[in-house]
């Protein structure tokens, strides 16, 4: 399994478990997110939608702005896209939180939208006490 897929399964499991236990919302893998007014259709690796906003989840897509988007670096050359165009796009769409998981550096960068731009933070508002640690591929 690739480093990206290992990180994907790990993050999806952790986030889904947390959201279920806290009944805070829905975690979805690789789902089409369509934000009509911003002319954006993307397929993030993981999205989270708060329970109070679950109406935006439709049969095969999310029509609206998710509360959290998580993207995972698949190759070191892929970082620029996630920290450039994608980050700008999610800020423009007013996605409140954006995480970039990098299995090559074993980091999860968390960004919170403040005044229209993302600021890196250690604390997530949506998953406040969740400690996400990407696994070392050597240790599985």
């Amino acid at each position, binding site marked *: 399994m690739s480093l990206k897929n290992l990180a994907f399964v790990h993050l999806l499991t952790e986030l889904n478990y947390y959201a279920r236990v806290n009944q805070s919302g829905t975690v979805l893998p*690789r789902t089409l997110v369509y934000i009509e007014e911003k*002319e*954006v*259709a*993307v*397929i993030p690796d993981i999205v989270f939608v708060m329970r109070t906003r679950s109406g935006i989840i439709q049969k095969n897509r999310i029509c609206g702005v998710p509360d959290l988007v998580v993207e995972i670096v*698949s190759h070191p050359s892929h970082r620029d*896209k996630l920290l450039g*165009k*994608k980050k700008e*796009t999610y800020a423009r769409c007013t996605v409140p939180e954006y995480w970039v998981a990098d299995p090559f550096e074993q980091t999860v960068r968390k960004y919170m939208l403040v005044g229209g731009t993302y600021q890196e933070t250690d604390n997530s508002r949506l998953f406040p006490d969740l400690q996400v640690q990407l696994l070392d591929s050597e240790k599985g």
Partner: protein
Amino acid sequence: MKTIPKAESQKIPFQVFENSIPNEGKWEWIDGELLFSDEEMRKVILMLVSQIGLKKMIEIFPHESRDELERLFKG
């Protein structure tokens, strides 16, 4: 391995297929543009045109596009 579209349809070797999948297989759209790099776009177009062949590609084009293409070649 070079992908060279020919007049007729060609089979796509697995290596070409694997190397030509753009953006991890995700078709994403932002501000009216596909989120592919120039290199990803080049590879996927060459693969698709190789698969259908140039003849079929021209058939698919609307008349306006064929005329445009002709003008470009005469250019």
